[in-house]
């Protein structure tokens, strides 16, 4: 893959991931009647109901996981290819010239 294309694709993917992450961190809506207060004896007498589910964020989480995995794989492949190219014997490029001689 062309390095410019790779960088462009990764930047775009990061923007998508950032959007998904931002969507995940929205503030939880207060679900109770009033906020906590303490009495003179120190007991919390009023409390809201808990938010005990996270399944609604499954699509966003899956998107982040998929994008991150794709990026990691693409990055690894790019690194492996460029490493192989740079470590390949330099004589390989001279082969046609040898034939000409």
């Amino acid at each position, binding site marked *: 893959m062309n390095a410019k294309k790779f960088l462009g694709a990764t930047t775009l993917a990061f923007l998508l991931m950032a959007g998904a992450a931002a969507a995940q961190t929205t503030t939880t*809506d207060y679900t109770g009647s009033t906020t906590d207060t303490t009495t003179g004896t120190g*007991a919390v007498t009023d409390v809201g*109901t808990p938010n005990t589910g996270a399944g609604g964020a499954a699509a966003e989480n899956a998107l982040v996981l998929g994008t991150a995995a794709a990026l990691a794989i693409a990055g690894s492949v790019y690194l492996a290819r460029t490493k192989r190219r740079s470590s390949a014997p330099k004589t390989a490029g001279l082969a046609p010239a040898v034939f000409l001689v």
Partner: protein
Amino acid sequence: MRSTKRFAAFIITIVAVLIFGATLVHALWYAPDTEIAVPNASSTPGQEVPGADQPSRLVIPALKIDANVQHVGVKADGSMGTPNNFTDVAWYKYGPAPGYQGSSVIDGHVDNGLSLAGVFKHLADIKVGDDVYVQTAGGNMLHFVVSDIEIYPYKSVPTDQIFNRTDRARLNLITCDGTWVKGGDTYNERLVVYTVLVSG
């Protein structure tokens, strides 16, 4: 030039791996809580709950639940805290302890960040008359029986009733139900299972 590109690719790959790992852990195992400290708060006015009487395990044979009990307070938004994972349940430590006068409250997650089952995924399957046990830190086993099961819209949950301090010894189990409220980042209903102490 090539080394710069390789370095950029390396950084991007590492960041992607870190994001993947963090998201996976957050979605499947770790549910961080933003609990706030309440100065001088105690579980029951004028009545400290000894450590041995505090709950350590919740057992519901009908649902095959045998869960560790965490102790939680309140979050910054005023709601009851939740367990920091999807397999434990959590006791509201500023309310009565199980077995004491009043309603003790235990909550648990219905699902995790990838929609896989949480500890209370099947709480709706419980029936009136089913047994619920709480083991205290001191080893005492408290026996409760389900007396009522209710589903409330999440904005009109009768918290006075659920967190009642003057009622007989009750244990109320609560979890999310209904459908996901996109903007609210929560489910639109709460399932509450009311139980009463029969022995222990």
